[in-house]
Each structure stands twice: as C-alpha cells, then as structure tokens.
C-alpha cells in the first residue's frame, strides 16, 4: 500500500499541489491500479528484451543549424507570452 506520505512526496516531485480531497482519495485509487498491475509478475520475462522501438522505424534527424525566421513567425511565438519588443517576457524567478 502506498502511504499518504509517499503520495505527498511523489506529488511534490511532480510539482503538483493536491487538495484535501485528493490527498484522501489518491492513495486508494492508485492502490487499486497497482494491484491490477501486479498481474505482470506472473509473466516470465528473464529471457526477454524490453520493446522500446519498432524495428521498421528509424529516427529522422535534421541538421542542427540556425534558420532565419520571418518577422511574422517571430511575433507569433512572442505573442504567446507578454511581448516587449523582440523579447519574451517570462515569469519572475528569483
């Protein structure tokens, strides 16, 4: 059983603040999922490799190069934040 304290720690690591109701319910909800997942321990896997990629697919890579971006696109990117000239204004961090 995952303890309430463990959940608190995981939530902090994941930068999530849980409200009181969540703090109460999440341990039980995760427990039922973890119990279901326990089924996997029945499977013999000592001779099996993990499947991370499908063999037919190869990574597509592109050159790491600086590309010119037109003014319109620059503005569009900046519009996502509060723009100030050609800078992107972000949250105060210190």
């Amino acid at each position, binding site marked *: 059983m995952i303890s309430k304290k463990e959940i608190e720690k995981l939530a902090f690591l994941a930068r999530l603040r849980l409200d009181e109701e969540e703090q109460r319910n999440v341990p039980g909800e995760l427990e039922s999922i973890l119990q279901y997942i326990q089924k996997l321990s029945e499977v013999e896997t000592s001779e099996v490799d993990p499947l991370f990629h499908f063999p037919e697919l190869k990574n*597509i890579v592109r050159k790491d190069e600086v590309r010119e971006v037109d003014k319109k696109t620059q503005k569009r990117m900046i519009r996502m934040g509060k723009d100030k000239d050609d800078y992107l204004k972000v949250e105060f961090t210190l």
Partner: protein
Amino acid sequence: MSDTIRETQKKLRNGDISPKELLASFFSRIKERNKKTNALLAVYNRATQEMEEMNKNLPLYGSVFAIKDNILVEGRRCTAGSKLLEHYTAPFDATVIEKIKDKGGVIIGKANMDEFAMGSSTENSAFGPTRNPHDLERVPGGSSGGCAAALADGMCNAGLGTDTGGSIRQPAAFCGVVGFKPTYGTVSRHGAISMASSFDQVGPFAKSVEDAELIFDAIRGKDEKDSVTSELLRKEKKEKIKVGVPKECFVEGMEESVKEAMEEAISKIEGEDVQVENISIPSIGYALSAYEIIMASEVSANMARFDGIRYGLELERPSAKDLKEAYLINRGEGFGKEVKRRIILGTYALSAGYYDAYYIKAQKVRNIISEDFKKAFLSVDIIFTPTTPTLPFKIGEKITDPLSMHLSDIFTVTANLAGLPAITLPCGKKEGLPVGAQLLARRFQEENLFQAAKKFEKLWRK
C-alpha cells in the same frame, strides 16, 4: 446530412448542392444540438467561405472536419480539454492540419475531449462532459468523444482524433461511426499535444471505411518534424481473407449483449472467401497492465512541460513566494484529477528502486505481446475482437472508479502496445445502442485492413 465524404463530393461537383447549403446544414445541426451534447468547444463560421474558394478537384474536397482539441490549428484556441490551456492559441498548424487544408478539407470546429486525452468517457474535460447523441444520459466514450459525437450527430462529415490506448476507436464504437488508428509511425504527430509518445497516433473518424481510407491517404507520410514517421506501407492483395478470433477476448466482465453482437457479426462474415478461425493470444490478458505503467510513465514525462508559464495561462501575479511554489500552484490548479493521478503513478513507476520492477517489466511484457501478435499473423490476415467490453455506460457511472474506467480500453490497448493498425466499425445495435467490432492487421498493412473492413461493412449493414 448523413452523406459520406464521397457522396458529398459527387453532389458538390455535380452542382446538386452548394458549399453554402452543405455548411448551413451542419451549422443548423450544431445550433440545434450542441447545447445538449457539448460535442464542440469552438465553431468556425469561416468554413463556408473556405469551401467556396476551394479547388473542386482536390481529394478531400467536400470534407468538413471536427478536430479534437489537442491538435493545433493556427490562430485558434487549443485547450486539450484543460483549464491550463484555456487561453492558449496555436502558433502554427499541425502537419495533419496543413495536409487537410492543402488537400481540400475544411474545419468546422474543435471537439471536446478528456483532459490531455486522459479518459474513456469525455467526462474529464474542464469544459464539461460530452453526451452520447444516441442517448443523452450516456457517455460518448473517450478521449476523443467530441469528434465521435459530432460526427454521429450530423455536425460534420469527418473527424480527426488521437489514439493512445483506444481514444479514437472506443468513442467511435460508442457513437456508431468508423474510427481508425493507423500503424505507429505512419501519420505525423507534429502539432498534436503529446500524451504517451510511444503509443500516440493521429487518425480519422468517418461515416464509412472508404472515407477513413481517403483521410488516411491524405494525412499519412514521413515528416521531419516527427522523428519516427515513415512512408512504409506493405501491399499484399488477398483473394481470400483469414480472420482470427482470439478466445482471450471473450472474457469475464464482458456484457452479454456485446458478446451476442460479436457472435452475430462473426456469423455474417463467414462465407466463401472469408474463413474464420479461433486463435489464442495468451498475453492479451496482460496488455492493460503493461499499458497502464508505460502510459503513466510517458505521461509523467510529457506533462512536465506544462508549468503554467510557457503555454497559454495568462498568469495573474501569483501568490507564490518562489518558482517552486508557482509550479505547485499552477499545476495543482491547472490539471484535473485524472491527469494528476496518472502523473503521480508515472512518477512512482519511474522512481529509483521501482524502475526495473514496473517500467522495464512492462516493456518486456510489451515485447511478448508484440511477438504473440506476430505469430498469430502467420496463420491469419485479420484479427477480430470486440472494440469495447460494454455498451456505452451512463454518465457518472465510472468516474469515481478509475480502474473500472480504464477497463473500457481492454481490447484497444493491444494495438497501441504492438503498434498495429486497428479499425472499429459499427456491426449492429443492442438495446438501441451501437456496438463496434475491431479489426487488426500487421504493422503497415493498412491495405489489407481496409479491404477486409469494406467487405465486412457491407455485410454488417444488411
């Protein structure tokens, strides 16, 4: 307007109907029904003008799309069903949107969804649940429930969704339309908001298998902006189709009415050129467990980018005393319950000491499942399963029990684990509600899949 894209195209090209009349019929349906179903989150009036200006010879001419709200359309809001992205405007078109526009399609609106595509009922949307047009007390399925409901209800004639564990196929089945998840790697995800990157695929909702194929042909292909895409398609024409039915799919917990519908569907396709045989894929029983771990792990990594600072959220001066607290508040208030649960589960599965026992173990089981399917496809061309174990359930019925909600995806997750193409199509009705049958093929063999699906579609419509 219940015509397919093909039928609509013909009428438009012959001048039997004008773009204005076509779009007006969709808009009036939206006006009449969207308040009841909440299928669409945004409606674009410009679609009419766009179609009027379109070249009539383009392959998607006449198609009118509802787009799941986790796919970026330039200059439009893209919320992913989340409060966190409520004010986020997409700065560019997703590759699939670019292709749809280039090939003659128009977009009528954005469709509701479970937050960040996490859910099987579209009840997890920050903008209220979507209701099933066949019965407003029931869910449309999820996570792409808005697309499926809009299409089934005559608000559009096509849809585009994402499928990580069944998010196209399960709602398509619940709403009585065709839903297709392509082979992993055939369709670009650039501009689709990531959930679990080793499973995510973009795919169509359609009124017919032929329409689904038409949309797939338009959106597929290699894209340097999605590093695992490929042009590969394997062609193999078959005169006779061998269909395998895994016995593991007729499990406990499956509703009697769904089982009945499956037996009826199977008996209808058996014939001269279709041979049905019972097969066994023992590892199917472990698919959902493996999926849960891998999905949650990838979710916890992908969701890290949503800090409430970089995307969308116009921050009020936060009460936070430092950045750490700002993250805790933004993410704590911005994400809904299901998203938070999955992030925590994924963080747990990836943490030191548990990584091998959970994540690596699940990836090994995933390999066994993939190999088991490969073996099964040595003796059959197509695998047949139910799409869902139950009929569409009531709103509120499963929302407080995450595990029973996740069990809705028990037959669909296998295709994502093994990267297979999978299509669901209506195979009948029970208790007045649609039932879907799912067909799977080998990776990159969409051609065989469509061939079989078109054949069965005719037989099941009779």
